[in-house]
C-alpha cells in the first residue's frame, strides 16, 4: 500500500507536467504556424503585387489598388517595342559568359589555395583579404577611363563588363576553398603514389567530386550580373544600348518616367525574374549547401 502511494504521488505530478507540456507545445506550435503564415504572406506579397500590376492596362503609374480593373498584356507588348529587349540580351550574354569564366577562375584559385603549400600562400591570402577591404567602386573611376580608351564602354559595354566582373573574381574563393578543404587529402596522395600528375588529380579525381561546388559557383556567377547596378551604370554611362536590365529599368522609375512606365517596370521584373527563379529553384539544393558551408568556414 505504502509503496503504491509513493509511486502515485510521484507519478501524478509528472503526468500533470507532461500534460501541461503537451498543451504548451500545442499553443507554441499554433503561434509558430501563425507567424510562419504571416511571414510567408509578407515575403510573397510584393512579388504577387508585381505580377498583378504587370497586367494592368487602365493606368500606367502607381495607384492605390493592386488588382487591375482591366487586364491585358499591353505592358508585355510594350517591353518588346522598347529598349528592354536589348538590355535583356546584354544581361543574358554577360551572365552566361561570367558564369563560365568566373567558375574557371574561382575553381583555379580555390583549389590551389586549398591543396598547395607554397611560399607565398599565406601572404597572398592575407593580401587578398586586405584588398577586399577597399570599396570596389573606387577602382571604377579609372577602369572606366581605361576601358573607354580601349573602346569597351557605352555601346560596347558588354565585353567591358564581362572583363570587369571576371577579372577580379579570383578574390571570391572562400566558399569553394572551404569545400575543397573538406575533400580528404589522402585521395590526392593515393593518386599521386599511383603516378598521376597534379593536373590529372584535379581533372580526374577532384573535379568529379566537386560537382556541388561547381554548380554553386556557376549559379551564383550567373545570378550576380542580373542584379548588378553600380558597375553596369559606370560602364554603360548613359548609353541605352549598353545597359543591363538593372540600370535600364532603374531609369523607368525616375520621376519623369514613373507615371508612364511603372506597370512596364513590373512586367519587365516578371520577365527578368522568371528564368532566374526557375534556374535557382532547380539548383536550390546546391545553393543551400554552399551558403551554409560558406558561413561555417568563414
Amino acid at each position: 500500500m505504502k509503496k503504491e502511494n509513493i509511486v502515485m504521488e510521484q507519478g501524478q505530478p509528472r503526468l500533470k507536467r507532461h500534460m501541461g507540456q503537451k498543451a504548451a507545445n500545442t499553443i507554441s506550435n499554433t503561434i509558430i504556424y501563425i507567424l510562419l503564415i504571416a511571414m510567408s504572406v509578407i515575403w510573397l506579397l510584393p512579388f504577387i503585387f508585381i505580377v498583378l500590376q504587370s497586367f494592368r492596362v487602365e493606368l500606367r503609374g502607381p495607384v492605390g489598388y493592386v488588382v487591375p480593373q482591366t487586364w491585358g498584356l499591353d505592358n508585355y507588348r510594350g517591353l518588346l517595342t522598347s529598349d528592354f529587349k536589348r538590355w535583356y540580351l546584354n544581361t543574358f550574354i554577360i551572365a552566361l559568359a561570367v558564369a563560365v569564366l568566373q567558375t574557371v577562375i574561382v575553381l583555379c584559385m580555390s583549389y590551389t589555395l586549398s591543396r598547395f603549400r607554397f611560399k607565398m600562400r599565406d601572404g597572398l591570402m592575407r593580401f587578398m583579404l586586405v584588398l577586399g577591404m577597399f570599396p570596389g567602386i573606387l577602382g571604377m573611376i579609372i577602369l572606366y577611363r581605361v576601358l573607354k580608351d580601349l573602346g569597351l564602354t557605352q555601346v560596347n559595354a558588354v565585353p567591358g563588363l564581362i572583363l570587369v566582373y571576371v577579372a577580379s573574381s579570383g578574390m571570391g574563393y572562400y566558399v569553394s576553398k572551404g569545400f575543397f578543404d573538406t575533400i580528404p587529402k589522402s585521395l590526392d596522395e593515393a593518386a599521386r603514389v599511383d603516378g598521376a600528375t597534379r593536373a590529372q588529380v584535379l581533372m580526374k579525381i577532384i573535379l568529379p567530386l566537386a560537382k556541388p561546388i561547381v554548380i554553386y559557383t556557376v549559379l551564383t556567377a550567373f545570378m550576380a550580373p542580373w542584379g548588378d547596378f553600380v558597375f553596369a551604370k559606370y560602364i554603360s554611362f548613359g548609353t541605352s544600348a549598353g545597359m543591363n536590365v538593372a540600370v535600364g529599368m532603374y531609369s523607368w522609375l525616375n520621376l519623369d518616367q514613373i507615371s508612364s512606365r511603372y506597370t512596364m517596370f513590373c512586367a519587365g521584373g516578371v520577365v527578368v525574374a522568371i528564368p532566374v527563379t526557375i534556374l535557382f529553384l532547380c539548383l536550390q539544393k546546391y545553393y543551400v549547401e554552399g551558403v551554409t558551408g560558406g558561413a561555417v568556414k568563414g
Partner: protein
Amino acid sequence: MKEDGWSQVIDSNHLFKGAMFMKQYSDLEFLRLSRWGKFSYRLNSFFCGIPQGIKNALFGAGRFFKKLGRGIGGEFGELFRTFREGDWKTRASYLVMGFGSMARGQIMRGLMFLLFEIVFIVYMALPTGGLFWLKKLCTLGDHGVTKVTEVVYGQTVEKVIPGDNSFRILLYGVLTIFFIVAFIYTWRLNVRQNRIAEGILKSGKKLKSGKDDLRSLVDEQFYKTLLALPLTGIVVFTVMPIVFMVLVAFTNYDGTHDGANNLFTWVGLDNFNTLLSWQGGNNVYSAAFGEILSWTLIWAFFATFTNYFLGMFVAMMINKKGIKLKKLWRTVLVLTIAIPQFISLLYVGKMFAKNGLVNLSLINLGWIRPGQELPFWEEPSWARITAIVVNIWIGIPYLMLVATGILMNIPQDLYESSRIDGANAWQQYTKITLPYMLFITGPYLLTSFTGNMNNFNVIYLLTGGAPTNARLSTAAGSVGHTDLLITWLFKITTGAESKYYMASVVGIMVFVVVAVISLVVYNLLPSIKNEEDFQ
C-alpha cells in the same frame, strides 16, 4: 610562437590585460554571479579586451615589419654571397639575365629571362617609355593643350598642339613602377637560379631540361599554372586601380582638371585636410563625413544584428520538432533570394513612396487623408527605420539558410541532457544555441558587418540617399540622411563637379574604418580556428 622581448615585458606587467580596469574572476566565481553580473562581466571584458586586440594587431604589424627588414637584409646578403662564391657564368648573369642558365644548358629558361630583360630595357628606353613617364610623374605634366592660330593659304586655321596628359602620366607611371618591381623580382630569381644550379651540378646531379620544366608546370608547380590567370586579373583590375586611386587622393583630379584639357597635379595632404579638419563646423565636408560615418556604423550594426537574430529565430521556428511542411516554409523564403534584388528593392522602395501603393491604399481605405501621407522616405528618422526594416525583409531568408545549417549541426544530446536537468526553452537558447551560433559564425558576422557598411545596392536602390540633407549638400554632390559612405562616394564621382579626389579620400577612409574594425574584432574572436585542423 615566440614573442619578442617588448611584448613579454608588457604582458608581465599586465598593462593591457585589463587587470587595471577590472577584477578578473575564476570560472567558479563567474558561475556564482547573477545573470546581470555575468552579462556586465562579459560586456566589461569585451571592452577591456579591445586594448588587447589593438595591441595584438600592433604587435602583429611590428613583427611583420621586423620580418620584412630581416628579409631584405637576407636578400642582400645572399646576392653578395652568390656573387663572391659563384663562377663566371653566375657573375655574368648579374648583367645578362639568363646567361648562366643558357651556359649550363637550360636554354629555354635562359631565353625567357633574356627576353624579359630585353623587353624591359626597350620599354624603359623608348622615347615615350618607362623613363619618360617616371620623369613626368613628379609633376604630372607641365604644359597643357595649347591652341595656335596659323595662316595657311590665306585662311586662319586653329591648330591644337597636344600637351601632357596627367591621367596618362599617372597611369603609365604606376604601370612602370609595377614593371620595375616585376623586373627586380625576376632579376633576383635569375640570380638565385644560378646559385641553385651550381649547387646541383656540384653534387653531381643533372639539371632539369626545358621539357622537365614544362612537365613540372602540370605537376609539382601546377599551382603556378592555376594561379597565373586569376592573379593577373586581380593585379590588373583590382590592385592597379586601387593604387591609382589612392594616388588620386593626393591630386586635384576632378571633372574640370581631367588631365587632358586641364592638367591636374599633386596637392599633398590637402584633400585629407578638407575631409577631416573641423574648422569650427564650417567645413561642409568634415561635417558630412562625420554624420555619414556615424549613420554608416549605426546602419551596419542594425542591419547585421537584426538580420542575424531574426534569421536565427525564423530558422529555429521552422526547425522546431512537430512543425510540419518545413520544406514549404523554407522554399517560400528562399524563393525571394532568387529574384534579382534590384527588382524587389526598387519595387518596395516605390511602394513606400509618397504616392506609392501603401500611402495610396491607406487613402483609399480612408485611414489617412490626402496630404497626410506617411513620410516613409521624407523624414530622416522614418527613412532610416524603413530602410532597416526593408533590409530585414531582404536579409532574413539568407540568414535563415545560414542558421538552419548550423543549428542542425548542434549535437542533439546537449538539448536532451539539459532538458533532463530541467532547463526551459529560453535557458537552452541562451546556454546552448546562442553560444554555439556565435562561436561558429563569429567571422561571418564580422564580414557581414563590413559588407553592410558597403551595402551600396540596398541604400541606393531603396532611397537613393533621400531625404536630402540640404545643410550638408555641396556642388560636388548631394548628401542625404540615409547615404552610406559608399553611396556618398558614388554621388561625389557622378555629381556636377565629379570630384574624383574627394571620392578617393572617402574610399581610403572606408578602407581605414573597415580595416580597424576587422583587425580589432578578429583578434578578439574566439573561433579563429587553425586552418590545418579543418582538413
